[in-house]
């Protein structure tokens, strides 16, 4: 069985699915990703499906599961590069990929993750400012 490689780029894990996956490969990817998120502490996962010429309910379910797992592990998942024919077919199939964020391409996906991380970062700044220890030293 082949494995789908998971690349780490900065704070993001990039998965580019290049092959017609067997169901086992998809399940393996699910596991691999969960492990890598924890091991790297990354906060973003981009799954590039540009090369996939179909997404059936099994792969659809895998994508939803990955999104849900990464959310629990404090990482945001964005699925990018879905082909028009695949999207049209998914709509007909009745698969809505609830809970998954999507973007047109890897670049847009990275922007999306960056934007949502910024919102979290703002919180971090606010917390720093509200830090009583710091407040004490500055007065």
């Amino acid at each position, binding site marked *: 069985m082949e494995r789908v490689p998971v690349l780490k780029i900065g704070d993001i894990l990039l998965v580019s699915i290049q092959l017609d996956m067997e169901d086992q490969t998809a399940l393996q990817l699910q596991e691999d990703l969960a492990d890598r998120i924890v091991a790297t502490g990354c906060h973003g996962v981009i799954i590039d499906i540009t090369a996939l010429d179909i997404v059936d309910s099994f792969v659809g379910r895998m994508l939803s599961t990955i999104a849900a797992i990464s959310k629990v592990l404090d990482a945001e998942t*964005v*699925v*990018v590069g*879905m*082909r*028009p*024919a695949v*999207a*049209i077919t*998914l*709509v*007909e199939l009745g698969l*809505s*990929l609830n809970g998954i*964020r*999507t*973007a*047109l*391409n890897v*670049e*847009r*996906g990275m922007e999306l993750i960056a*934007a949502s991380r*910024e919102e979290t970062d*703002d919180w971090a700044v606010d917390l720093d400012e509200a830090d009583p220890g710091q407040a004490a030293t500055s007065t």
Partner: protein
Amino acid sequence: MALDAAQGSRLAGLLGDHAEQIVKRWADSVAVSLRGRLSQAELQSQVRELHRALLVALEGDGRELHAESAGELRAVLSELSRSRARRGFTATETAVSVFALKDIVLETMSAGGGAEQNLRDFVAYSALIDQLGLFTFESYAKAREELIADQAEQLLELSTPVVKLWEGVVAVPLVGTLDSARAQVVMERLLQTLVDTGSPYAIIDITGVPAVDTQVAQHILKTVVAARLMGADCIISGIRPQIAQTIVALGIEFGDIATKASLADALRHVLKLTGVDAARRNARRES
């Protein structure tokens, strides 16, 4: 129907010996039937080429139109038919260009005198020319069919342009009646354009659509959902009052899809979305 070898070489001789005269008379005769819609020079060169190709065919084994050495003749004939068809000449006007040769050959032959053998020859030549004429007719019809198919495709393209309105914003202004097939084509093209241009926003403007039935509305809705799956947002603009009534009467759920009164409103809406995003991000970076 085909010429025998002797007849072939006699016709070749006839065409070769009186080349200049035949080409001139031929061109003149065709010019009359086309009533000056092709220039004299162009006609001359067409006829000359035809004459030459016919000679080549006859001098080879081309006493049948389907023979190998008649390849060039067939090419010249179909090219002639094609150009006539594209320029709007009728089938008759096209075939006449070939049939005119009959009269010229008869003239030239009777000028040379002769009797019974000439008659038999002429019947044979005539049959060959008929073959050429029919071939022109076929090529003409084929060229016209291609023309019609091309135009149908162009029409579809014309009626379904996907235009870029702004960086990251594309629009399809839909005009005319949408049947299910056309709606499908438009929507597929829209989705492809989103990918090609990397635009996260699409505006579907239906100002020019007189009526929407359930099927077409379903196509539009499915496209919006498909675009979302791909990571793009669609806004529908220009919904006329009657169409709004139809949509409600048919019980079609537009759900949380953004709808705007006009294309301008839709663009403003999108720019506000992207503008606000960008401004907010810049503000953060500065702070």
